[in-house]
């Protein structure tokens, strides 16, 4: 079989016109026989057969380009069988265990008995099902509350570009004062209670930290300071909400937190206890925790963390002394506020924690 | 002798026929008036000059017969159903409309009367209806078409099937010599009679402004369709005295004069001036009152 392509006939044209064939399709031709008339922009030329054999015309007439295959000349014509995709027949039948091809490959590779595959109780057995049979390690499904927590955390990480800042507060004097405060209020008032109240009181000055992101560069401001507080007494993580903590007195806030702790022990939160927060305080009071980075809850702009109290030796005017300090962290939605706002906010909270006397008045 | 007594060319006309012809005439004239006043939505096709044909036809039809009408169908309807208020309400979209104002002038379905706006479309449908009549009784299907409709292939499909299957179908051709603006000579080769002959379909042609003559020519044909259960084509040569729809007449003054002279109205006012004058007064007043009544109604509603 010899290919018959159009030679380059001049330098001007990038296409020619195939005017007519001088032999018919299927004709026996001899080398040198005139075969075809090609017209360039200047001339009409006859091209000769390059070989002996049967002419099979590919291009009958019209535009053609140098190098284009316009015919083949060979001893015999190739017979091509049409390729038509096969559609398997439709059938009705009973349903049995179905093993996918990747699964079948794994079964063979690991020599797994078919009984074990059937024992999976699946109608369709996939590669991952077979892989589980080859892996001795146990697979555990997390409890529902943790799966819900997982969803919240993932959503936060996917949707909120958070930044983080922490400050250190000196709570040496505060620690003594909380005892007086507790006695006075007839309920436990510790650093957690003070922090919740201190955060809530900042809304007038820092409204954006209590807002919620709407998209398109807009936020909705809060109508009250509703502070979610993490409570985990070993029965799962809950975040009950202290509503309107800015307008309620410290002892009322403290009493509600105490009620929530009791509720957490009973494990009987109601939906309304857990709804409507616009900022969160996360407590990490286990000894030795220096600082913690909270997640910003979806729909919030800010979350604070309170780490455990640390003993620290500091040089003062009267020589070295032991001080009690805590780290307060602030994770915030960087689309809404910047590091300066975060620092000012933390500074205000820190001052209140270090100077809690105002709540005695 | 003051002048030559002109010979009457028309046969005496019944009061009922003349009243109905005049009622249709004044209905159409009222529509043209309303159109000029901008009180009609869309367009309308009047049958001025052709009124006597449906009046002649309707007297030969029975209540069970179906009538299929076309775009120029007000006369077809009013000749069969004396309900000008309902038709006007349909055309003006008022309460009491035949089809709630949805169909308008060209799309009416009332009892056994149906019109559509696509040329020739209703002929095959009429064959279907006629086949049911053939099976269930002595009813027939009567379809009005114009000379222009004979350009549509559906006409020939229908004639072929009607003749093959013996469908009691009466096709009434109102041959008004013009299709919208194209003279028949410029759009129809051969003749309607010749075309019918090709299918073996019986054909009769009449050219008269006299309602009795038209009816007399048609009566045996209706009888044939009803009794023999075969199709037939009745071709009535008429003059379109008005425009195709409104303000779209391109005919010359001479052609318009010829159409006016051929108008049945001209013949009847000449032969029966007193009778026409007396009845015309009544019909004009009746239609004027109908227009006033219908236009005072609330708009039609369609759910």
């Amino acid at each position: 079989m010899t290919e018959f392509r159009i030679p380059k006939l001049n330098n001007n044209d990038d296409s020619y016109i195939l005017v007519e064939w001088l032999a018919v399709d299927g004709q026996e031709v001899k080398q040198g026989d005139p075969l075809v008339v090609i017209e360039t922009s200047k001339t009409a030329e006859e091209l000769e057969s390059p070989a002996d054999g049967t002419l099979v015309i590919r291009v009958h007439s019209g535009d053609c380009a140098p190098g284009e295959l316009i015919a083949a000349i060979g001893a015999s014509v190739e017979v091509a069988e049409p390729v038509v995709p096969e559609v398997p027949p439709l059938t009705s039948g009973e349903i049995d265990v179905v093993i996918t091809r990747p699964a079948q490959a794994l079964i063979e590779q690991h020599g797994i008995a078919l009984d074990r595959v059937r024992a999976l109780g699946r109608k369709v057995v996939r590669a991952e099902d077979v892989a589980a049979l080859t892996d001795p390690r146990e697979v555990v499904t997390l409890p529902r509350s943790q799966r819900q927590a997982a969803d919240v955390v993932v959503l936060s990480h996917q949707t909120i570009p958070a930044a983080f800042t922490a400050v250190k507060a000196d709570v040496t004097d505060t620690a003594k004062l909380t005892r007086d405060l507790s006695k006075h209020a007839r309920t436990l008032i510790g650093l957690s209670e003070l922090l919740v109240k201190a955060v809530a009181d900042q809304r007038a000055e820092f409204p954006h930290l209590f807002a919620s992101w709407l998209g398109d560069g807009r936020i909705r401001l809060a109508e009250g300071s509703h502070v979610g507080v993490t409570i985990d007494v070993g029965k799962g993580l809950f975040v009950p909400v202290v509503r309107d903590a800015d307008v309620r007195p410290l002892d009322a806030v403290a009493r509600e937190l105490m009620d929530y702790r009791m509720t957490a022990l009973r494990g009987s939160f109601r939906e309304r206890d857990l709804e409507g927060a616009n900022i969160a305080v996360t407590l990490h009071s286990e000894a030795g925790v220096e600082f913690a980075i909270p997640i910003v809850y979806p729909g919030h702009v800010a979350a604070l963390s309170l780490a455990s109290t640390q003993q620290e030796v500091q040089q003062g005017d009267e020589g070295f002394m032991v001080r009690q300090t805590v780290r307060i962290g602030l994770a915030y939605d960087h689309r809404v506020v910047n590091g300066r706002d975060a620092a000012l906010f933390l500074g205000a909270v820190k001052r209140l924690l270090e100077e809690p006397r105002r709540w005695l008045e | 002798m003051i002048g030559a007594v002109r010979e009457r060319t028309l046969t005496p006309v019944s009061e009922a026929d003349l009243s109905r012809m005049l009622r249709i005439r004044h209905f159409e004239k009222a529509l043209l008036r309303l159109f000029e006043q901008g009180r009609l939505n869309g367009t309308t096709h009047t049958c001025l000059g052709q009124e006597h044909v449906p009046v002649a036809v309707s007297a030969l039809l029975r209540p069970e017969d179906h009538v299929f009408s076309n775009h120029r169908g007000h006369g077809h309807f009013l000749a069969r159903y004396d309900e000008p208020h309902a038709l006007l309400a349909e055309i003006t979209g008022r309460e009491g409309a035949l089809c709630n104002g949805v169909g308008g002038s060209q799309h009416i379905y009332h009892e056994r009367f149906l019109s559509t706006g696509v040329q020739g479309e209703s002929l095959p449908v009429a064959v279907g209806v006629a086949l049911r009549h053939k099976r269930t009784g002595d009813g027939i299907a009567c379809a009005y078409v114009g000379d222009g409709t004979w350009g549509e292939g559906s006409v020939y499909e229908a004639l072929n099937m009607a003749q093959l299957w013996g469908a009691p179908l009466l096709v009434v051709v109102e041959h008004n010599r013009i299709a919208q603006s194209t003279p028949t000579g410029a759009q129809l080769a051969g003749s309607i009679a010749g075309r019918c002959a090709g299918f073996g379909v019986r054909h009769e042609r009449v050219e008269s402004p006299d309602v009795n003559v038209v009816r007399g020519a048609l009566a045996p044909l209706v009888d044939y369709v009803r009794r023999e259960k075969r199709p037939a084509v009745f071709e009535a040569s008429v003059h379109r005295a008005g425009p195709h729809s409104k303000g779209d007449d391109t005919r010359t003054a001479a052609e318009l004069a010829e159409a006016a002279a051929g108008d049945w109205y001209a013949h009847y006012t000449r032969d029966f001036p007193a009778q026409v004058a007396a009845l015309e007064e009544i019909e004009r007043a009746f239609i004027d009152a109908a227009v006033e009544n219908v236009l005072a109604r609330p708009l039609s509603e369609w759910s």
Partner: protein
Amino acid sequence: MRVAEHLNRSLHALMENDPSVHLLGEDVSDPYGGAFKITKGLSDRFGPRVMSTPLSEGGIVGVGAGLALAGDRAIVEIMFGDFATLAFDQLVNFAAKSTTMYGRRVDVPLIVRLPTGGRRGYGPTHSQSLQKHFIGVPGLSVYEMSPFHDAGRLFGEIFASGTPAVFFEDKVLYTKPMLSGGDGLHTFEVRDGWAVIRAERDTEDVLLAPGGLTDRAVAALRDLLLEDEIACTLLVPARLHPLDVTPVADVLAAAKRVHVAEDGTAGGTWGAEVARLLHERLWGRLTAPITHISAPDSIIPTAAHLEARCTVQPADIRRAINK
């Protein structure tokens, strides 16, 4: 039982049970019994209620509409669905419009049956799938035969609705068996005009396709599951338009990716209309835009290898879903 035989038996039962049903079409009478033998035995049994007609597609659809209008029920067979274009006026401007254009409901119990589709080498004017041209015509329903649906029930449903319908029947499907139960891999469930074909509940991939695509869609589903480990549910509606997805809302609710396949050529298609409808309903729950699989924007050639290129094949469906 093959689909062709099922259709034939359904017509026999329909005409037996309802003497107002008439059937017209070219060459439908015995002994020929229609180009695809769907009307075999009907004229011998029901005499003048079955009429072989002249070659007048527009005319016979008009006659069918006339019968329907006058109180009968009519089925018109168009020998090849391609010729439905000749009856377009009667369908769109008369039969469909008449149901509403007279200001009140007018029943037109008319079914126009359209043998349709390629893969039989009949060439460009005898192989098309013209469903898309009848989508969105007020007063006209579009149905397509599937191997899952009882044709007799569909015919009864159409007549009872009083809305005229075009009823597409894939010509290759005629030779396939009617299906019920399952195929050893998938279960076949029929509910309210839909067939649900699936190997597992609540699959993330869902494919919608008319009945004529069943053989190729099921073949694609099989490969997707066995080779690619993708479980996909096939939904086959009997009525393509108007499309009511309520009966399969649960299947769609579980979907993360939806695919629509059809035999018509690309551009202004049924599948595009389905995608529009489903995007409105499923927006926000899907993880990808709805995939559309159709024949290319091309006439259908005659030669087998060329025709295969211009008709939807199982591999096309598998590839689109796998993407």
